[in-house]
């Protein structure tokens, strides 16, 4: 039997895997690494992160949100971003790194990829700072200022990457940035090419030049129109690909250059009344239509968890069953 890592490589290289790659199994995510996450930690909490963005999680809600009323919006005027936005330091003490380093050391790298985690993404950072509406309009109204802001976020990401690489020597990177709604990309391919592609070429290029073999990018959305750019940026696996993208067709068209991880929409199977039968039905359809190469069956959710207890585990169990049935 191939190790998880070997099996993954067979899938993305078009070789002969001996089973489906089961969701996130090949990634050993080092979540202990010190980072500045874009969320409030628990229901009923509100935090201001190091970028000055306030995240609120009202007690009766299922998740947290960046706040953009006049009082809380971190960036109120894009033309004045140099005064209003200050990137936090990327330096943490050895003590703060200790748990992450110990975790990375404990991983058998023949079996799994030691995986660094990065969120939010560059595009997300712009709308967390200033709200989605302001960020999207600024792409038209103040393109130069937006490019400068994006460059500034890139500088921060590169500096943070250097620290992560120094401390845990990751083999893979799992990087979030949601680029669309379920039926369209947020911005046009041309605009994406102008603003976002150059930023990620730098960031992903840097990780790859420093020992990272695999770039997994999360966008749980439609983004089929952006796949050529994903390839250009150096993304090896697009995680979160929703069924609205027509994944089987994407695999036919681009599979040799990029692998698709998803095609099981969390929205359809991950809810309070979930059942194994429903998960089986969606997962089987995904596996049968997408096939064994360039495809990893996975919930669209951006981490190895589900919103409702048991759904992630049940999905893994179903994929094991399908491996037995189909290999």
């Amino acid at each position, binding site marked *: 039997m191939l190790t998880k890592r070997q099996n993954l490589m067979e899938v993305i290289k078009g070789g002969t895997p001996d089973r489906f790659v089961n969701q996130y199994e090949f990634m050993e995510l080092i979540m202990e690494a010190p980072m500045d996450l874009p969320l409030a930690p628990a229901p009923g909490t509100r935090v201001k992160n190091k970028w000055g963005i306030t995240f609120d999680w*009202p007690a009766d809600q299922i998740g947290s949100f960046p706040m953009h009323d006049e009082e809380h919006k971190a960036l109120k005027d894009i033309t004045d971003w140099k005064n209003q936005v200050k990137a936090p330091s990327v330096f943490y003490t050895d003590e703060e790194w200790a748990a992450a380093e110990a975790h990375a050391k404990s991983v058998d790298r023949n079996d799994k990829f030691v995986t660094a985690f990065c969120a939010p993404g560059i595009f997300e950072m712009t709308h967390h700072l200033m709200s*989605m509406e302001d960020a999207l309009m600024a792409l038209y109204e103040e393109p130069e200022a937006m490019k400068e802001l994006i460059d500034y976020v890139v500088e921060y990401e590169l500096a943070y990457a250097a620290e992560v690489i120094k401390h845990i020597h990751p083999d893979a990177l799992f990087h979030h940035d949601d680029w669309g709604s379920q039926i*369209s990309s947020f911005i046009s391919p041309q605009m994406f090419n102008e603003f976002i592609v150059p930023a990620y070429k730098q960031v992903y290029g840097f990780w790859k030049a420093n020992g990272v073999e695999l770039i997994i990018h999360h966008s749980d959305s439609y983004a089929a129109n952006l796949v050529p750019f994903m390839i250009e940026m150096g993304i090896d696996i697009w995680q979160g690909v929703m069924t609205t993208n027509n994944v089987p067709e994407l695999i036919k068209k681009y599979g040799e250059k990029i692998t698709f991880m998803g095609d099981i929409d969390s929205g359809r199977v991950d809810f309070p009344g979930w059942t194994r039968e429903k998960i089986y039905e969606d997962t089987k359809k995904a596996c049968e239509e997408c096939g064994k190469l360039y495809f990893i069956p996975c919930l669209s959710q951006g981490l190895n968890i589900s919103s409702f207890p048991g759904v992630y585990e049940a999905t893994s169990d179903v994929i094991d069953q399908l491996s037995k049935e189909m290999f």
Partner: protein
Amino acid sequence: MSKIEEVKAKVEAGKSKLVPGLVQEALDEGSAPAEVLQAMVESMGVVGDKFSAGEIFVPEMLIAAKAMSKGVEVLKPLMAGDGSTSLGTCVIGTVAGDLHDIGKNLVSMMIESAGFDMVDLGVDVPADTFVQAIKDNTNVKIVACSGLLTTTMPALKEAVATVKAAFPDIKVIVGGAPVTPEYAAEVGADGYAPDAGSAAVKARELATA
């Protein structure tokens, strides 16, 4: 190109700095305010259709809506009290338990551009608040409920049921990523639309039926 054609083109292109001046020029040329408004409504209709067809994206829609609202500012003082230009009031909100508002805001802009007066209740709106808003505002024709989470689908159902129970004649439309036409029918909504452009078409259709 006549001034009014220019207004149309610039609204479509989202030129919010140019539109107010052009609107003024169109008025100076002798166009009636209602005529200029109608031209802008038509441009936003084109914008909505292009968005539905996937030809343009969210930023293009946002800047077009902004350009139109700049133009409307010029017209407003001239049209105050002229209720004949409005299709009625539309109350909109994201249902209880849900904080997503990007889609709701776009829908609101497009319905407003189609000629409605909007009352935006924001996010996390309890069913009763929709009913209260109908009582507090005049000429409410449409209630639009947005929901993005599968977990808040029951709240969507409750919102529709509560509004319909209190005001059977008011039309309720629903939408949001997990909402399907089947689900909309099942919960008793009068209309569904998959995107902001078609939401405006639907609202107009229901209000003028």
